[in-house]
């Protein structure tokens, strides 16, 4: 357990301090949220375009979040693969599954959690009702676990490939469809005054299943790349 905690602290330090840490993902999220109203129409209040934007604001905030959490994944395994740290970790006392899980948890702590706090700001700036804020934070935080673990599979599979980032996005986005659907369902149901707990519970179930099963896929991909 001590070794696992140490690895988690190492991963957290790397994700938090290296190259701008969570600021980079937050900056990307801000940039995406800025581009959407510019692309959707005139930013003048009380035009039909503004109301249309307000209706889909939570959805846009949600998709931007999925994209922002994908972009920081590329270096999750690649960095250690290039400098040889992966070989050392493979020789250590912690199983590859454990290291992979620690990596994803650290990824979530350093990127997913800050993004989850920024998500309601983005949604409200786009015109969503502030009453949605607590649910958006909850969905973003829980969904972020699913994004980190499923994304980790993509990052491990892309080890040693010729086009990391683009490839990770292509293979991971279809796998992220269920959490995006469940989270979107919960938020739109809440906005419409319907029962939103079903969506949130399904999202939590998916995130827990991903956290339980994804480390095995990541470890298998890692062994394959190191062989």
């Amino acid at each position, binding site marked *: 357990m001590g070794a696992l905690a140490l690895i988690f602290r190492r991963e957290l330090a790397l994700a938090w301090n290296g190259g701008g840490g969570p600021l980079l993902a937050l900056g990307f999220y801000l940039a995406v949220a800025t581009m959407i109203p510019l692309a959707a129409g005139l930013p003048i209040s009380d035009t039909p375009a503004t109301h249309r934007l307000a209706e889909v604001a939570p959805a846009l905030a949600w998709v931007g979040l999925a994209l922002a959490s994908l972009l920081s994944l590329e270096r999750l395994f690649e960095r250690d693969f290039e400098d040889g740290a992966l070989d050392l970790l493979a020789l250590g006392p912690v199983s590859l599954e454990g290291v992979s899980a620690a990596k994803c948890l650290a990824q979530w702590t350093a990127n997913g959690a800050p993004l989850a706090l920024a998500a309601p700001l983005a949604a409200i700036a786009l015109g969503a009702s502030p009453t949605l804020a607590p649910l958006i934070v909850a969905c973003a935080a829980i969904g972020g676990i699913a994004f980190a673990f499923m994304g980790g599979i993509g990052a491990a599979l892309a080890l*040693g*490939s010729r086009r990391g980032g683009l490839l990770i996005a292509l*293979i991971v986005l279809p796998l992220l469809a269920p959490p995006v659907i469940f989270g979107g369902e919960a938020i739109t149901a809440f906005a419409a005054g319907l029962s939103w707990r079903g*969506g949130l519970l399904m999202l939590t179930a998916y995130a827990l299943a991903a956290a339980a099963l994804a480390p095995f896929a990541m470890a298998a991909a890692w062994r394959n790349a190191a062989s």
Partner: protein
Amino acid sequence: MFAALANPHRFMAFSRWMGPTLAAIAVTLIGVGLVLVTGAPPERWQGTAVRILYLHVPSAITAEVAYMALGAASVVSFVFRHALADAAAKTVAPLGAGFTLLALVTGSLWGETSWGTWWQWDARMTSVLILFLLFVGYIGLRASIDDETRAGRAAAILAMVGLLDLLVIKYSVSPPSWLPPLYRQLTGGELVWWNSLHQGESIFSGEMAPAFLIPLSFMIFGFLATFGALWVTRIRAEVWSRRAQALAVQAAGA
């Protein structure tokens, strides 16, 4: 039967006549099916536009069979490190992507004539589109890793993850019938889910009239036989190309 075919020599001997046989079966079934389709009655509400059914349903079924085949071949190649299963997985992916695309395009044409829209973000359509993306991701991952064995194992992991996820995706867009009552029992609330524009299952439930069902069956089995013939031929081509590569390496070394 599959255990016996795991031997590449036996597979090559078997597939030599199996490929052409399946192709002949496919041509016969689709030929008879097309004759029956031209004679089939127009549907009460949709008129002759219903004939798209005879292309749309077989391609959709073949696309799903192709993903099951990809998943099964990937499990065998990953667990037993079997080269022939890897060749089977590699060659089935583009076929599956093709049949999925065919199902999407014919569905879109049919949707325009009967629903008045090319595309709707409906449960069935979304999950078939995601199926297409899974095939594309598989092909993309294989193509971007140079080492053939390593690419095959990485892609097999992705196909297995995709197989599990595909079940969740299908359920995430339309819940299984046991889920809403279970949810009501556990939480006392109602489960809110997507509404589907796509019609429900009507082939196995016996709702479809024989006048439509008989030509449709010919087309379904014809498409499956086409898929089988193309797959077997593609595996043979893959085996030959790997042998050629091995010979080239041998010749270069000598």
